[in-house]
């Protein structure tokens, strides 16, 4: 500790010589917070003000040139927008909220980011420290409430602690397996003065994100890979997080091993590639699910064997040996017992593994995937994407958008049938192009996330596919789009039902449609109220023309597309079934 103090003092002295932003000058806690954020490279904040956080918002006016604040219409919207911002920009998402209800409104967004490993720093205000514990106005124990859904959280009651805690928060959120952290700052700490100096955090005794490379395990993996006959790569979100798309592609191309992706792993491998096996899971593609139980070696990279991917664990890949490359040790052997664990970062492992593996091709094995693709196309995809008659299908809309954008757009989805259709039918060509709520499955994610995605990457087209149910869960964010003229393209896939729940009622509850049919407002009229142009699409003949108009428009645009009311997403692995029992045809 003494040495730290000494270096601190030296640093202070050094910075005193040349007066800079962090020259140890007297500032308020609120000022220190904003300066700390600037030091960490933050330029965009999503948030919503309130009583306890007013000193921070007051100071924001002094930093308007460096910190852009996006005022959403609900704290949940701010959390989702900041998460999407982080997912497309690679920078941590920053979110402000006041104490009490402001803080609790964030919880769904925090939990969502936690399950999907997105680096985020949430700043909540807290009542004056002397009032904590007294059930004061707008007081909530947000540390207690957020504890199970944050990677780390902390309360600051003294202004002098702010710079160090913020530094620690950024270090924890962005390293190792990323995740959300929450810092709760009391109102008195925001007003108190401190001598500001900033030092980025690079080390914590109890937290070790830099795991020395397990070279022996990598050598063993190479031997297993070189001797495999029917190997399969399962690529997850970890590939995108560690920025290993290039390495994954090189590894797959050298070894000739087909690549299947998880929902959040989508866009980590180009979907037009000859080795692309498809999307795994309950509503994934036929081939990768079925053939998981035919592979003799599974190489899982940056994925966590979620139950939506594995189906019935007792019948999951029993014949295969499994190599698990994963940065979070707690995920290894959690759901699936593996034969070889490599507890390291995906990019690091792959770049060391590539020179050790032999060049190979698996023609007959890869052909099996193509045969499955053909079966799936004949039985499901053809009628879903190119129907001759009847109502418009979800797959058809997504397929058209994929064609019209050439697969180059950031696709944002809500949750449910719209999400599965988008994941299945959009042909992704670039990494970090799907923003969706994976682990948590949060309806209402789509609209605010599209805002964050556009702000995080303004150069790319952002298209949001949202169901009529989820759209109404966070519909207030149309106000944010109006306020900042955010040119997001909103496509409502409107079937008048909570589609996925209705599908389950259809399949497993004898078609008893309990509370799933919706009475909807006129979404185009609502959009007009927010000065967002829109078109209602009822017939197939209008579809392509409307989509072109949407994509060509300069500003925000909304399409309300009437979709086949009782369409089901197929294939499907029914709950409790094995991946090899994936069904292609369901007749009610």
């Amino acid at each position: 500790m003494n040495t730290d103090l000494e270096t601190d003092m030296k640093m202070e002295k050094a910075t005193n010589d040349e007066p800079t932003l962090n020259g140890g000058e007297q500032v308020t806690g609120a000022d220190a917070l904003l300066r700390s954020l600037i030091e960490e490279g933050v330029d965009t904040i999503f948030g919503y003000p309130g009583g306890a956080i007013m000193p921070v918002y007051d100071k924001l006016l002094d930093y308007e040139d460096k910190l852009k604040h996006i005022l959403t219409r609900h704290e949940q919207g701010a959390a989702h927008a900041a998460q999407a911002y982080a997912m497309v920009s690679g920078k941590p998402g920053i979110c402000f909220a006041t104490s009490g209800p402001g803080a609790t409104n964030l919880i769904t967004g925090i939990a969502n980011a936690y399950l999907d490993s997105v680096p985020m720093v949430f700043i909540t205000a807290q009542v004056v420290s002397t009032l904590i514990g007294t059930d004061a106005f707008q007081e909530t124990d947000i540390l207690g409430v957020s504890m199970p859904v944050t990677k780390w959280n902390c309360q600051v009651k003294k202004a002098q602690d702010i710079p160090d805690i913020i530094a620690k928060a950024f270090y924890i959120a962005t390293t190792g397996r990323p995740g959300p952290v929450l810092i709760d700052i009391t109102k008195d700490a925001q007003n108190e003065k401190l001598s500001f100096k900033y030092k980025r955090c690079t080390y914590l005794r109890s937290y070790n994100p830099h795991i020395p490379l397990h070279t022996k395990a990598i050598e063993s993996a190479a031997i297993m890979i070189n001797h495999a006959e029917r190997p399969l790569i399962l690529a997850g979100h970890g590939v995108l997080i560690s920025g290993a798309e290039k390495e994954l592609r090189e590894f797959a191309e050298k070894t000739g091993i087909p690549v299947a992706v998880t929902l959040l792993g989508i866009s980590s491998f180009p979907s037009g590639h000859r080795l692309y096996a498809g999307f795994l899971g309950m509503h994934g593609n036929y081939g990768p699910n079925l053939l998981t139980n035919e592979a003799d070696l599974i190489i899982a990279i940056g994925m966590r064997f979620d139950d939506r991917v594995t189906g019935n664990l007792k019948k999951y890949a029993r014949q295969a040996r499994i190599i698990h490359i994963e940065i979070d040790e707690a995920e290894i052997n959690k759901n699936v017992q593996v034969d070889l664990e490599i507890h390291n970062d995906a990019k690091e492992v792959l770049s060391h593994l590539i020179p050790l593996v032999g060049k190979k091709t698996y023609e007959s094995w890869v052909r099996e995937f193509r045969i499955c693709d053909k079966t799936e196309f004949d039985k499901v995809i053809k009628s879903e994407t190119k129907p001759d008659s009847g109502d418009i299908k979800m797959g058809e809309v997504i397929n058209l958008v994929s064609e019209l954008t050439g697969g180059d757009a950031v696709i944002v989805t809500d949750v449910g049938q719209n999400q599965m259709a988008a994941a299945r039918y959009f042909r992704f060509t670039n990494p970090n192009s799907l923003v969706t709520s994976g682990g948590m499955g949060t309806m209402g994610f789509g609209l605010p996330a599209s805002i964050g995605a556009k702000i995080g990457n303004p150069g790319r087209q952002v298209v949001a596919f949202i169901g009529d149910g989820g759209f109404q869960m966070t519909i207030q964010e149309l106000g944010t789009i109006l306020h900042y003229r955010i040119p997001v393209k909103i496509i409502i896939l409107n079937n008048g039902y909570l589609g996925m729940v209705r599908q389950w009622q259809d399949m497993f509850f004898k078609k008893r449609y309990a509370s799933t049919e919706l009475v909807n407002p006129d979404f185009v009229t609502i959009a007009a109220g927010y000065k967002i142009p829109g078109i209602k699409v009822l017939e197939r003949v209008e579809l392509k023309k409307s989509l072109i108009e949407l994509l060509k428009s300069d500003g925000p645009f909304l399409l309300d597309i009437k979709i086949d009311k009782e369409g089901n997403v197929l294939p499907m692995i029914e709950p409790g079934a094995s991946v090899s029992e994936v069904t292609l045809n369901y007749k009610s």
Partner: protein
Amino acid sequence: MKQEFTISLFSEDHIGILNQITIILTRRQINIESITASESAVKGVQLLTLVVKTTPDMVRKVAKQMEKLVDVLKVFVHSSDEIIYQEIALYKVTTKGLMSGNVIDHIVRSYHARILEVSPEYIIIEKTGHKSEITELLTQLEPYGVLQFVRSGRVAITKQVKELNSYLKEMDEANRFKPEEIEAYNKN
């Protein structure tokens, strides 16, 4: 098969650690049989000793989840034969009953118990040992009128020689490697 495990968890001395630990156990429906918290031999490092009954597979999973917590330094899991452990119990027995039975000498000797205080109303006896011995003594004392009985959680010490200090040193070193150093280290 469920069996008894002792989890020794070393953490930074921060507020809320216990809460984070219990959240992990609660999610997995594991009951805490006993718990002891104190400062460890290393200054600023807290030691939590938990006793849980669960399967070996489950205890391994929850231990990893505990170690994943940012403020947790190291988690050790031991089955009962890998550790030396003790609990302490205090018994408040009526003086009248105990004296009339004329057994006090016998009890103190055969159970390695200690008398802490004697008053006209009660005698306080202290006993350290395993849970079963403590319970046995309670049964012995009951006929003489036990006014109050308390027992502590478990404290445990491992049979292995390696100490936390060396783990801390190792972790420090692992952390201080920069990526390029790790690369160089691996090349050699």
